């Protein structure tokens, strides 16, 4: 109980540049994401990664994939709303927002998002009450892990 409260306070205190940002950060930040999202955590291990699954009370399922060296290299989300993307994409959030703005001016309309930068891939689609998203850092995928495994 106490530790949860401490984590929550830590997350609030560090805004708007949260230490708890996830993609590209240490897997230890997962606990801070859980606190920030007020979610429940389930952790399991694959062949080349550790999967942290966070379920938020508002019905959003977040997955964070961490490499054997403990770095989060991919995140996904699925649910009626977006999770806190600044929190989840961490140091990549500003790059993401800028890329969406650029795509918007190229007549892409209001359709799904597909950002394919050398160092960042983000895909978002769906509609109100049913969103899905996936973001990963291609260079940080562990050996033997395929992009299709991130879902």
């Amino acid at each position, binding site marked *: 109980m106490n530790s949860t409260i401490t984590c929550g306070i830590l997350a609030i205190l560090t805004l708007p540049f949260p230490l708890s940002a996830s993609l590209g950060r240490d897997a230890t930040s997962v606990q801070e994401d859980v606190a920030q999202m007020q979610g429940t955590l389930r952790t399991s291990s694959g062949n080349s990664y550790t999967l942290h699954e966070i379920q938020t009370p508002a019905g959003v399922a977040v997955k964070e994939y961490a490499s054997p060296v403990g770095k989060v290299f991919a995140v996904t989300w699925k649910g009626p709303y977006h999770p*806190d993307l600044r929190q989840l994409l961490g140091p990549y959030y500003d790059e993401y927002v800028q890329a969406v703005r650029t795509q*918007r001016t190229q007549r*892409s*309309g*209001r359709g*799904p998002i597909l950002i394919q930068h050398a160092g960042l891939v983000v895909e978002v689609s*769906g509609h*109100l009450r049913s969103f899905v998203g996936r973001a990963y850092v291609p260079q940080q995928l562990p050996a033997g892990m395929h992009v299709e495994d991130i879902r």
Partner: protein
Amino acid sequence: MKPARLHEFFSLLLAGILAATVGCGSSGRSSTSNSSGGSTTPVNNVQTITVNTGPTAGPPINSPAINEPFTSVTVCAPGSTSNCQTVSGILVDTGSPGLRILSSALTISLPQQTGAGGNAVVECLPFVHGFTWGPVQTADLTIAGEQAKNLPIQVIGSTTFPTIPTSCSSKGVEEDDLKSLGANGILGIGIFAQDCGDACTLTGSSNPGLYYTCSSSGCQVTTESLANQVANPVRFFATDNNGVIIDLPAVTGAEASITGSLIFGIGTQSNNALGNATVYTINPSTGDITTRFNNTNHTSFLDTGSNAIYFLDAATTGFPTCTILTFWYCPTSTQTPSATNQGANGASGTFTFTVANADTLTGSGTIGVANGLAGPNAGTFDWGLPFFFGRKVYTAIENQNTPGGLGPYWAY
């Protein structure tokens, strides 16, 4: 004691409703809803929609829209016939519920909805790209001959509430001006009756945090009753309030513009009968159906607010993406793949659709319509506007009765 008092309350309520209903009947005003042979003149339920380069085509934005259906709406201060404004360049969106208008496009002032402590209610509505932020205000909407009185709408980007809470601004791109929204507003006439639904009536961490109350000391997430939420305007109509039809002509290749109809009601007048359209019922919580493509099932939805058919990726489809416009496909020759849509009711229908070279289709900035526009989409099958070309597509609202059964469903 309590149940008994409740029972008494509901009995009184029921009696009141009955009395009111009888009162309506005896006033000499015959109901126009659901009547096929009534003597009253039916309400004009047909609104013209235009697919063209839209309000962002010219300076200063110079970003012409493609495959986006626009229309005009008239909003008045509630009860007023003079404090009114007709706003054009409103995107017709079957993928969201509720009317939203840019504050920069609105010249009249509307009454502000207030919540706890008398503070203003302000909404953060999530879209795929990000969010719209702005106050909930009340308007009388007129569209074709239909009226939605005292309709809660979102006024996007109001200067009265310039400070966006971090919990809202962390959802992606702010779409609060003409350039980022791509329209002067959005007419959301999808399957849901309200934009948030039951979730926003909950307290605590189960509340998704779409509605806020704002005062001079900041904004806080609030609960919002279904009655106060930004609502699908069709549900506020006196008649023709169970759904809509999008009726667009067939399109071959690219054109500057086309016009079609947004018809209100399903089976309520002679011009909106369901006919032999197939009903595909929709998952009522997600708003999705299933598309089967190459023997694999995918989550899918129909959406006039998406400007192309967005599905799978280059590796799976074999269609290369365009070099610069990487969000569209650029096959060397026009392709006609087939897909099968499946409703939750087991209804199923196979059809072909067109995937053409997007560079060729959209080469000119004067083109506002293009059949064959398609692109990759990692998560879902998004049947955007080209799916609607040459089809009459029925969208039935959740929990509403229609000759095709209870909504939500799509039929075509």
